């Protein structure tokens, strides 16, 4: 690890928060108080956390349909996000947005667009704003590999390069657009190679390792900030969940199992990988790691209970929404 113990634990905690919120969604979704499509980031948490950990609070970020991790890693409120999922007035988008439209003005998380490659051109506009304002802030646009199938992804890259804008395009390559593999969609699957042709600086990192992401991101961010020129960071990791819907393909966090998985050098779980790196280099932090793995999910579960109760109270009072069908009801 090339980070302090404090930063290492911060990264771990942020990833566990994201995982626990999404596990909460999986657990709660069948009660039908949370509605609408949800795109989980399970397996990809290190992308958001590694990049945004080295961003400054004044940097602005924008995301896609898969926006939970970015919102949370940028510092969006956990409670306001969960309220948003329940459609509550106290939600981060006042309950009107839901999973794909998280927003936090205080955290400079400027929302998300589910229309591919929505966030990419928006990031260019945000970058232009940063430049015109004379802020030394950077705009960070997250997108999937599927976004790079879209023409406007390249329009955005080209314009950012021509106008010399401080934009970091983070391309989260999970190898799939819904269920279509990247190689069936593009003959050249290295997204950074495309970016270089436009004169952009580009870097790659394996996003199972949050510290590798952080390192690569720090380097490109430094370039973007000091030269006011855009860059692309291409990150690879597996999506350990369904494309859409509350379905994880790995087990919920369990401290014992996580510590065992942490010893597996070939793990694809970025949380296990992070715990493994910490325990290898700083074994004295074992207690702190366990505390995060146990404490965070407990706190998040309480947030879900609170939001769920508020949702049911509201419906009971307003009487506007039909009560949810019984839990056993199949659709």
């Amino acid at each position, binding site marked *: 690890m090339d980070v302090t113990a404090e930063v290492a634990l911060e990264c771990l905690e942020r990833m566990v928060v994201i995982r626990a919120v999404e596990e909460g969604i999986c657990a709660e979704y069948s009660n039908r108080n949370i509605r609408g499509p949800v795109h989980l980031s399970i397996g990809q948490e290190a992308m958001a956390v590694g990049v945004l950990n080295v961003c400054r609070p004044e940097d602005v970020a924008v995301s896609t349909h898969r926006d939970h991790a970015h919102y949370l890693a940028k510092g969006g409120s956990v409670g306001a996000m969960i309220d948003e999922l329940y459609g509550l007035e106290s939600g981060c988008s006042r309950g009107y947005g839901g999973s794909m439209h998280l927003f936090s003005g205080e955290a400079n998380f400027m929302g998300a667009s589910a229309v591919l490659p929505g966030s990419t051109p928006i990031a260019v506009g945000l970058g232009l704003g940063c430049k015109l304002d004379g802020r030394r802030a950077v705009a960070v646009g997250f997108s999937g590999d599927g976004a790079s*199938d*879209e*023409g406007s992804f390249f329009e955005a890259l080209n314009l950012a390069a021509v106008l010399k804008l401080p934009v970091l395009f983070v391309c989260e390559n999970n190898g799939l657009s819904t269920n279509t593999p990247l190689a069936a*969609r593009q*003959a*050249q699957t290295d997204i950074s190679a495309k970016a270089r042709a436009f*004169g952009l600086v580009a870097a790659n990192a394996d996003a199972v390792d949050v510290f590798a992401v952080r390192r690569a991101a720090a380097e490109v961010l430094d370039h973007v900030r000091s030269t006011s020129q855009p860059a692309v960071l291409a990150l690879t990791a597996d999506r350990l969940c369904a494309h859409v819907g509350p379905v994880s393909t790995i087990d919920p966090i369990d401290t014992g199992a996580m510590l065992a998985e942490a010893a597996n050098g070939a793990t694809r779980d970025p949380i296990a990988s992070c715990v493994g790196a910490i325990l290898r280099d700083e074994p004295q932090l074992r207690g702190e790691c366990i505390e995060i793995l146990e404490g965070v999910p407990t706190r998040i579960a309480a947030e879900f209970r609170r939001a769920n109760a508020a949702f049911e109270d509201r419906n009971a009072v307003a009487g506007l929404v039909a009560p949810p069908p019984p839990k056993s009801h199949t659709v």
Partner: protein
Amino acid sequence: MATTTHTDAATREQYLQMHRWMCMAKALDDRMHILVKQGRAPFVGSSRGHEGIQVASTAALGADDWLVPHYRGLANSIVRGLTMKEWMLAVFAKAADPLSAGRNIPGGCFSYHALKIAPVSQVVASWIPKASGIAYAAKLVGDGSVTLCTFGDGATSQGDFHEGVNFAAVHRLPVVFVCENNSYAISVPIRLQMANPDVADRAAGYGIPGATVDGTDVPASYAVCREAVDRARKGEGPTLIDAKVWRMNSHTSEDNHLKYRTKEEIADASEHDPIMRFVAWLVERRWIAAEEAAKIQDGFDREASDAADWAEQQPDPAPEDALTNVFAAGRAQGASV
């Protein structure tokens, strides 16, 4: 003036034919400018400066191949067989105009099924995915045809360019993409259009070969295009060619390039006339005498003038036919949709 060493890709006869095609395009182009000044024709989008790459790329095709040209593709269309009279019918928007029967922008749209020239819209770059679609169909049907798709440097800033090239690359389609890079999109110079002016560099991002060529050098352009067409035909997929050219005139007759180009720059562009350069090359090889080349040009100039006078007298489209061939059958008369 620079010449080239590529003499082996075509025969003397073929090169002399290319020269005649270029002269035909120039004759029509010059005549259109005169017609616009006289108030007889409404509009001209000039291909002056582009004739070298246009003739070279299209001459590399076979009769059953497809051309998907941009609005500047007059010389491409002439190589496919468009006659001077036919072109002038289009310029005057006459009923017998074979390109669009007088419906499309006069002198800016090429669409000729019998010559395998696909109809394109003037919406910049919109025809690039269509070219990939034609090539995809050719691959599915297995007819062995190759599609040549041409566009300007400005078109490469459109998402359609990326989607079209990416699709052709991943499916290894028989298509050749030629960017006629005149370093302007109307008044926008290339330095405001892209950070890296070499469009062929983007080929690496699509996993296909790219080539840069001086598009005013006919033998060099022909050699590069020939190779790309051969690759496509062998099933080895698309090629992206960046042909550098100089736009000798304003963007169109609706534009005045003196507003954004210096006199020196315009004078320099006219030094890069592909016809002058090609004639010098042919003369140097003693394949043509300078006087003979001038005579050929004079002959075509007269023919273009006669074609214009003739076309002007042809019938206009009938007003009652205005909607014919504009909407799909069954919809023209307000049929329910």
